[in-house]
């Protein structure tokens, strides 16, 4: 399995840049899911009716979990105009910001981090480093081949940011099978089965059960069972987000067509421009992506906009908008 490898090729480049603007963004992001959760719970207790992440909004204007909307279409077997419109809006949002929900809003990744022990966190880090090692392998293979006439000899490839865009689609994995299972089970059983065990929904259900206990003196079994289901999912089905989450799969399908806010590499700054096989960004990416050349184990379409690559980049060459790129490369 995971060989204990060191990032030989990235080692020569310091992976510890000084605390800059970018790492600050990355640090702020860590608190956003918690803040969103807290705001929704405040809305719940205050009776604003803002809802949960399954559906957020005010009165009749609301966003809905795209998977929930799809499941309900399959479950009820009826065409609901509202659900379809909401699905279109969700798709538009993903086209704009990709899978940013996963790292900026979803409460599950922080919960997973909290639940995983030191050993698992270290194993995750080792896996990332190994993934970066794969990248340097591909990078070397790519440099030694003159296959695609795009690059000058001796040059290592950069991101598809420079117009030569050969879009790489996300590979089918367990999440997509789980997504199919969610829809098929909804159609067969006549109700959205996945919603019953969705860890995101159960996180809020636990909070609601707690609120009902305190506010309505309603002690229920839910308060014990719901957290148990979440813990079971995150510990028994390890790497839930990467291997099982059908919401991630659904958003990823649409994110294949997103380009707007993907990490962009400034070809003048990236160390790979003159052949340095730097893989610091790939080693920092929790999604096993290679932001600089899309040579990672997973496609760039899976990017969750967490900004850890930009924070780690020793040359400060990664931007999420065109604005930040140096003048000539916009």
């Amino acid at each position, binding site marked *: 399995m995971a060989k204990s490898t060191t990032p030989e090729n990235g080692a020569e480049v310091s992976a510890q840049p000084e605390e800059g603007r970018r790492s600050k963004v990355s640090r702020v992001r860590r608190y956003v899911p918690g803040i969103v959760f807290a705001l929704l719970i405040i809305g*719940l207790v205050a009776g604003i009716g803002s809802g949960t992440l*399954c559906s957020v909004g005010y009165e009749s204007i609301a966003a809905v979990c795209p998977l929930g909307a799809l499941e309900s279409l399959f*479950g*009820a077997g*009826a065409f609901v105009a509202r659900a379809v419109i909401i699905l279109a809006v969700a798709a538009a949002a993903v086209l704009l910001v990709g899978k940013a929900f996963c790292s900026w809003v979803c409460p599950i990744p922080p919960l997973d981090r909290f639940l995983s022990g030191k050993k698992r966190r270290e194993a995750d880090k080792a*896996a990332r480093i190994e993934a970066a090692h794969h990248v340097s392998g591909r990078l070397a293979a790519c440099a030694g081949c003159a296959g695609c006439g795009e690059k000058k000899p001796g040059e290592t490839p950069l991101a598809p940011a420079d117009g030569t865009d050969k879009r790489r689609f996300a590979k089918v994995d367990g999440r997509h*099978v789980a997504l199919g299972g969610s829809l098929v089970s909804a159609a067969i*059983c006549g*109700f959205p089965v996945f919603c*019953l065990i969705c860890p995101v929904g159960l996180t809020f259900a636990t909070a609601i059960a707690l609120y009902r206990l305190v506010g309505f003196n309603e002690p229920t079994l839910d308060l014990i069972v719901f957290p148990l289901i979440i813990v079971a999912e995150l510990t028994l089905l390890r790497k839930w987000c990467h291997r099982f989450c059908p919401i991630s799969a659904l958003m990823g399908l649409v994110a294949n067509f997103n380009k707007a806010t993907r990490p962009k590499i400034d070809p003048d700054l990236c160390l790979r421009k003159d052949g340095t096989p730097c893989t610091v960004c790939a080693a920092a990416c929790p999604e096993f992506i290679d932001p600089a050349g899309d040579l990672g184990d997973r496609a760039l379409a899976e990017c969750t906009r967490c900004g850890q690559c930009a924070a780690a980049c020793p040359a400060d060459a990664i931007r999420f908008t065109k604005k930040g790129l140096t003048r000539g490369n916009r």
Partner: protein
Amino acid sequence: MEKREERTAAEAPKAAEAGQGPGLSRRSLIGGAVMAAGLVAFGGATVAFGDETEQLRPPGGQDADRFWGACIRCDRCRAACPLAAIGVEGLTPGIIGARLPIMDFREGYCDMCDGAFRCIAACPTGALTAFDPYVDKIGMAVVDEAECQLYGISGTCNAPCIDACEWDALSLDENGRLVVDEKRCNGCGACEYVCPTSAYRNYDASNKRGINVEVWHG
């Protein structure tokens, strides 16, 4: 440096063959397949063996197939109810109903929002459909003759339920007993909400009130 370059170049095809990194290959597909099969089995089992206890649903949720199929348990109708008449179904009646909205006439009753129906407006998936309080029914008020104080020997209740009913569905018969007009009652729960029998803190054995809204089969 040179040597290292060679090594990585030699390793490259191997890495490309492996294609997907740790835990993202066939194992992941199998995991997903197990989960997909699990979802179908779990859903099928809860439908086949679960005690799908009948509950009072919010207005517009009376078409069972539609309600069960479309509700994603998002909590918005419960949160939208200004009178807190909507509660949450727990796990105890059966896991299949967990987190579905139920009418809870201990906490409030349905005043139909004067026709605005905030719960229906808030429902994002169309699980709650249009509701006409003169035609459709949330449930049906049923007098519990053992609990209603108008049915006792003394019959001392001043019947706040009759005053609470906005639909003129409750009246006293010639013997001073409470009766329900099934045509007019739409199960709004106002009668149950105001009934003094077994109000909170009355630890009565049956825990039922003098008049209770029950599931109605047209």
